C-alpha cells in the first residue's frame, strides 16, 4: 500500500513513516500543506495521514480542496491536543477518520488498515463469512458450521464489525465508536467483557479460535492465531 504522510513536526513524521514502513507499506512524506496538496494531486495514494495544523496551507483547507476536485482518497486527520474538539468539523470537511495527538501507534495503524480496506471492492455482501463462521445481515442469523449461534443485538453488531474487518486489528476505541456509537473513555474494561462473552458464544467448543486479543492494541477476528498485526 502507498501512503502519504503530511506532517510538519519532524519527529512525529519520521515516527509515523518508520512505523508504516515496518508494517510493510511504502510511504511518501510532505512537511507542509502546499507540498502535501501537490503530492496528493499528482500521485495516486491509498491513504493520506494529514495533520490539521500545517504551515503554508492548513490541513482542513487542503482536505476541502482535495474533496472539491473529486479526489476520494481516504484521509485520516490528525490534530494536536489542546485545540478545541473539532472532530466533527474535521469529519465534515471530508476526513474519513480523526485521531488526536499524541496517539498510540497501534491505534493509528489499526485505523489506517481499516480505512484502506474500506475502499477495497468487496461488493455489498449480505452474508459475511470467515472460515465456518457465517453472519447473515438480512436475516440476522449467525452460524458456526451447523451450529446456530444466538446473539444479543449488540453482540451481533460487534461480530458484524469484527467480520467486516476480519484479519485487521480493531482497537477498543474503534469498537466504542462504531458498535456503541459513543466517543468516551470507559473506566473499566467493559469492552473486554463484551468481547469475551462474544468469544464464549462463537469460539467455545470449537477447535479453531477466531477471536484473538492483540495485546496493547485490541482484537482481531481471523482464522490464523498469529497476533502480529503486520
Amino acid at each position: 500500500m502507498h501512503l502519504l504522510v503530511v506532517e510538519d513536526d519532524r519527529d512525529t513524521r519520521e515516527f509515523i513513516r518508520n512505523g508504516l514502513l515496518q508494517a510493510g507499506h511504502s510511504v511518501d512524506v510532505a512537511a507542509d500543506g502546499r507540498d502535501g496538496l501537490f503530492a496528493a494531486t499528482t500521485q495516486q495514494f491509498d491513504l493520506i495521514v494529514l495533520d490539521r495544523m500545517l504551515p503554508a496551507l492548513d490541513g482542513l483547507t487542503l482536505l476541502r480542496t482535495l474533496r472539491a476536485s473529486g479526489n476520494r482518497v481516504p484521509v485520516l486527520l490528525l490534530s494536536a491536543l489542546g485545540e478545541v474538539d473539532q472532530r466533527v468539523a474535521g469529519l465534515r470537511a471530508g476526513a474519513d477518520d480523526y485521531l488526536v495527538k499524541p496517539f498510540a501507534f497501534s491505534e493509528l495503524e489499526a485505523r489506517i488498515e481499516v480505512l484502506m480496506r474500506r475502499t477495497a471492492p468487496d461488493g455489498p455482501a449480505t452474508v459475511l463469512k470467515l472460515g465456518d463462521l457465517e453472519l447473515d445481515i438480512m436475516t440476522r442469523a449467525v452460524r458456526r458450521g451447523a451450529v446456530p449461534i444466538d446473539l444479543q443485538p449488540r453482540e451481533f453488531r460487534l461480530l458484524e464489525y469484527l467480520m467486516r474487518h476480519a484479519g485487521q486489528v480493531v482497537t477498543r476505541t474503534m469498537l466504542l465508536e462504531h458498535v456503541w456509537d459513543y466517543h468516551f473513555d470507559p473506566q473499566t474494561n467493559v469492552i473486554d467483557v463484551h468481547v469475551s462473552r462474544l468469544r464464549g458464544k462463537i469460539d467455545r467448543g470449537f477447535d479453531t479460535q477466531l477471536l484473538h486479543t492483540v495485546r496493547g492494541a485490541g482484537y482481531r477476528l481471523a482464522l490464523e492465531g498469529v497476533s502480529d498485526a503486520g
Partner: protein
Amino acid sequence: MLAERARSVASRFGALVRTSTFQLTLFYTGLFSVSAALLAMFFYWSTIGLLLRETDATLKAEVTGLAEQYLEHGLQRLVQVIVHRMGNDQSGSMVYLFATRDNQPLAGNLLEWPRIEADVDGWVEFSHRRADGRILPTRARVYGLGDGLHLLVGRNIEQLQQLRQVFNRALVLGVGLIFVLATGGGLLMSSRLLKRVGAMTAATGDIVAGQLDRRLEIRGTGDEFDELATRVNIMLDRLAALLATVRHVSDNIAHDLRTPLTRLRNRLELAARDAPAAVRDELEASVEDADQLLATFAALLRIARIESGSYDAQYEPLDVGTLVNDAIELYLGVAQDKRLALHAEVEGRAVVRGDRNLLFQALTNLLDNAIKHAPAGSLVKIVVGLAGGGVVIDVKDAGAGIPIGEYERVTQRFTRLDQSRSLPGSGLGLSLVKAVAELHHGTLSFSDNAPGLCASLKLPAA
C-alpha cells in the same frame, strides 16, 4: 397552611430577637428608660415636690400659730383669729375648721368635719364641697388641742393636683414613647442587619458547598459590611487564584508529559514486535502500564478543558432514558460477572439538551463507581425522574457508601477514599462527572442510600 405560616413568621421573629443588635437595642432601651425615669423623678421633686413642701410648711406654721392663740388666750380668741384669717384670705384657698370632741364645728369655713381618720396631729388629703358648690381637693393638717377639741387647717390643692396629673401623663407617655421608638428602631435595624448578614451567610454557604466563583455582595454604601465583604472577596479571589495555579501545574504536567510518554509507549510497542518472547511479555506489560498513565492524563486534561470552557461540546436534545439504557447495556456483562443485578427505572420522557458523549461518559463513570463498590449479589439501580423543571438521574448502590463529611472531597481530583484504595481507578471519575454536570448547568450531589451511595446527577430539562 396557616399554622405553617405562623410558624415561619415566629421563627423569623425568633431569629430577629436572637440577633445581637436587637439584644443590644433592648439593653439600651432599658437603660434609657431608667435614666428617663430618674430624670422625671428629679423634675418632680424640684417642681411639684417644692410646691408641696411649701404648702406643708405654710399649713404647719398656720396650725401652730392658731394652737398657740388657743393655748395662750383661750377658745374665744381662737375663734376670733380664725374668722379674721378667713377674712384676710383673698384667694379663698385656705380651709379652717375648729370642732368639738363630737365634730361639731365651732368656727371655720368647712361645713362639717371631713370623713377622714381622726388622726390627731397628722396630714390628711380629702375633697370637700364648698358653699358655692365646688368640690375642692384639699390638703390639711389636723391638730389636737386637748379636751377633745381639734383644729384643721388646710389648703386647696386643686392646681397642684392638676399639675401632678399633667406630669404623670407626660411621664407615662414619654416613657412609653421611648420604649416603642427604641424597640421599633431596634427591630428595624436588626432586620436590616439580619438581611445583610443573612445574605452573607447564604453566599458563604454556597461557597462552602462548592460554588467557588460565588462572591459576597457589595452594596456600594461603603459601610463596614461592604468593607468586610470586600476583604472576604479579595481573600476568596486569592484562594481561587492559588487553586487555579495548582490545577494549572497539574494540567500542564499532564499536557507536557503526554507527548514524551506516548513516544515511549510507541517505542516499546514497536520494540515488542521484533522482541523474543520473554522480553516481549515485559514490553507489552509496560505498554499497558503506559496506556493506563496516558488514560489518567487524558482524563485530567479533559476535565481541565471542560472546566475552562475550551471543550467544544455539541449540544443536542437527548433522551436520558436512551443514554441510561445504553449505559446499562454496556455494563451488564461487568455487573453479571460480579453477580450484581442492574436495573433502570425511567419515569416519563426525560429530555435534556447536552453533549451526548460527555453525558454518556458521566453516566458510565457513575455506573462504573457504583458497580465497583457494590458487594456481590446486591442491586445497582439507575432511577431517572423529573423534579423541579429538571431531570434527576440517581445512581444507587448498596456498597460502603461515602461518609457524609467526604461528599465534597470525592469530586476533587485524585481523591480516593480509604475504602476504595484497593480498587482500580484514577480518582478522576467523579471530578469528571462534576465538570460535565456544571458544563450543563447541572449539579452532582450525594446522599445516603442506606446502605450505600446515591449519586444524583441533576440536569435542566430541555
